[in-house]
């Protein structure tokens, strides 16, 4: 089942000297129980695409549907079925992880006792018992990212959007996060994983979309891409595809 449907998403930013097209008619679908990798170099438009999907930004053109809800027409419903996580989402430094989780549970319309139970469940499940009662400001980067994951999961959403979730993490924390993402996939969630670590994407993603300068230059599972390009490693495939699109662009212009 298609949990996420993006159709011709466009985002144009006004700039002091004109306009900049950050995302240019990007379309893809993400199914239940699948990790979809949105890959591309910095500035390719990954984050902007994800922000449009999560209702943080209004698309200039195109539509997006999450679990059947239209991003532009039902933004509150979309936010209910979505867990959103980025590398640089901050935590409230002066709250403890437990307080923070209870707060976000309550923002997701849970009553207090239910919110506390859910927070305690997530703390237990993600093994955060050791630091659940320290202030977030005192946690390590890996611990913070664990809290962030728990935060994205408070409403047990069927769709997870993860923007560079492993950025700046050490090997051990990295392992924890990636294991968790796989587990969630196996439980039937639709997951969008954006990253520029291509090796990581290669081991994690069921299908990938390659973004370059706002456009989706290639899409499909890894085997298809390998056949298409005759290369094995994703990073090489990527460079080849980008080169092709750039030369195509050069020919076109």
């Amino acid at each position: 089942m298609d949990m996420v449907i993006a159709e011709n998403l466009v985002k144009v930013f006004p700039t002091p000297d004109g306009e900049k097209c950050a995302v240019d008619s990007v379309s893809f679908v993400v199914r239940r129980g699948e990790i979809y990798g949105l890959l591309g170099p910095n500035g390719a438009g990954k984050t902007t695409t994800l922000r449009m999907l999560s209702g943080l930004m209004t698309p200039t053109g195109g539509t997006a549907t999450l679990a059947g809800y239209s991003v532009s027409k039902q933004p509150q419903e979309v936010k209910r079925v979505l867990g959103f996580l980025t590398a640089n989402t901050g935590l409230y430094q002066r709250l403890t992880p437990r307080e923070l989780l209870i707060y976000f549970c309550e923002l997701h319309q849970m009553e207090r006792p239910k919110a506390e139970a859910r927070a305690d469940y997530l703390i237990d499940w993600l093994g955060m018992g050791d630091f659940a009662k320290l202030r977030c400001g005192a946690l390590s980067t890996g611990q913070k990212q664990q809290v962030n994951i728990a935060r994205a999961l408070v409403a047990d959403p069927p769709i997870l959007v993860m923007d560079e979730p492993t950025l700046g993490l050490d090997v051990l924390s990295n392992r924890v996060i990636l294991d968790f993402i796989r587990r969630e996939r196996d439980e039937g969630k639709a997951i969008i994983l954006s990253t520029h670590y291509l090796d990581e994407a290669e081991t994690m993603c069921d299908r990938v979309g390659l973004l370059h300068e706002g456009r989706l230059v290639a899409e499909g599972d890894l085997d298809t891409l390998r056949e298409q390009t005759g290369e094995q490693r994703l990073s090489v495939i990527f460079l080849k595809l980008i080169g092709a699109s750039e030369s195509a662009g050069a020919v076109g212009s």
Partner: protein
Amino acid sequence: MRFHHRIRTIYVKELIDILRDRRTLLAMIVVPIVMYPLLMLGSIQAVSYQVQSLDDEPIRFGVLTEDDGKHLHALILRDAETLSRVAKRQGAESAGDEDDAPKPLEDYEVRAMASRAALEDAIRERQLHLGILIEKGPLIGGRYRRIHVEFLVDSDNVRSFNAMTRLQDVVARTRDRLLENRLAQVRLPRALAKPYIMDVSDLATPTSMLGQILPLILILLTITGAIYPAIDLTAGERERGTLETLMVCPVPVIDLIVGKFLVVTSVAIMGAALNLTVVSATIYFGGFNRVLAGTEETVPLGKMALILLALIPFAVLMSAVMIAVCSYARTFKEAQNYVTPVILAVLIPGGFAALPTTQLEGVMLVMPVGNMVLLARDLLLGADISWWQVSLVLISTSLYAGAAVAVAASVFGRESVVFADSASLKTIFSRRLIKPAAWPPISMSSLVVALLFPTWFFVQASLSPGPGEGVQRLLRMTGVLMPLLFVACPTIVLLYWRTDIVNAFALRRPGVRSLAAGVLIGLSSWVVARELNVLQSSIIVIPAEILQSFETMAASIVAMPWWMALLLVAVVPAVCEELLFRGFFLSGLMKSARPVTAILVSATVFAVFHFLLFKFLVTAVLGVVFAYLCWRSRSILPGMVAHLLHNAIGALMVIEPSFPQTLGIESSDGDTWAHLPAHVLLPGVAVFVLALILIPRPVRSADEDLSSASFDIRSTA
């Protein structure tokens, strides 16, 4: 989850968050508790020490001749002897008040200077404190001499001035003693020497001095209390990256802003209360009443509570303004830059209001900040303030606060501000970056209306006729200014921000039913209005001066050509007020509030704009009816027709006295507010009710329009 539950959740979390911040605690608790006593103790002791030490310093007199010097010595010496004699005599009677007893001049020196110019220079250069020139007049009656003493003083120099007053005391005492002695020599009673005795009893209480300075201090403290949390909860949230997290939660931006705004208000009030308590305690326990007020009375603690109460609407306003301003900022530093000019802007009306001659009247009643300063002062001084003054201050302050919260909500979630794509302030005013909008946002409409409120009040107040004058000028100027302010201003704002004028003013063709309903309402609403007034007059008695002003208005209308009267009384207000309140304001409100709330708010504000409490009920009810009509018909026109007819009938009653008589209504001499006769009342009410029924039910497309309208704001917010 309901609105208030979500807001409570946000409120509790933000309050815990801000109170756990060491910087907040430091600024809110430690600074007032430690700093005030220290500052006050320190500065007051320093002042009294300086005054004391001034009296102990030796005084340097300058004279021109040896003779003058001797004369001066003799004068001071004899005065000291007399004083000590008097002191001994009084000391035998009672232990006396040492402070009040005159002190002799003891520690001084006298220098002779060569010339007057040299003497003046020495005083200017502060080598000498006072110059004394003594001139002996001719003998009077062969026995007595009149002596002329001239003081050369530099009154900018406190030591010079002090020297003069002390020597003046010596001379005055000597003069009185000599006079008494001379009277005794001719065997007249000594009392003859003083035909007048002056005593000053100062009636100022300690509160009056506090009353002058405390409101301003409190306002500063309240602002200071609001600044830090306002920045921390808006720009701080953005800077720490938690805003994005918050925005992906299924919570409307307005809830977030209201929750944050309530926290800032609470912290500001807590801060002000704490500051007030510590100041009171310092004055009370430090025994500074004497120094501050010159009497032994204690600080009136009951009044402090009253002031704190009056401070709440102000804290609400300042918190809203601070939240709105800081919402534009993306970093702490940027927010601090925005806050500074706001504080200055607040201090100007505040400072003006703190002037002792400024009264809580006229424009000051609706002057933001200024009216709070005056209200707090008048409460402290126990001045005579009427409840309508208090309510005007509170209503206008709430109006400004509401507009500020609406602006904050529309700015807070703005893409360009959340993600720092481009300079945030630029995106708001740069026309090229403004996307065409279908509806005016609530922030725009409420801000324009909030700004029009004091402007309109000022216009009305400045045009109000003096005693005996007619109101033709008021009516004529209203005919010009109302279109300018109520229609041209919103239009310019709408055009600049590329907002759809048709939607904003509901400039659509109405259905036949709506139009018919409008006509019928217009024809019958005066009956309802009149009965409402009768009802109201049984509860609130209308003061004679208001009745008088109604009559002046009637006389002026009669004096005009009928077409002009109709134009100024019916056409202009109907068109302008409908376009502003049922068009611009209501369409902005409808976008983000429920229809019921939007209609009630627009009607209340419409009523408030009439500035007369006695018109409030009728105008509010009519405001609800017109707004309902506009909402249901999706057109401004039916309400405009109804409004026009309502006003025209009112004017007609005045212009053509035979009209009410034909209807069998008693002429309005004597009891103005008698019930209408049944043969007018019953049909009138029936037509009114019929018209309300005639108003079309909401059609499907109207609903869709509204839901897409409310979606619009969410997706842009």
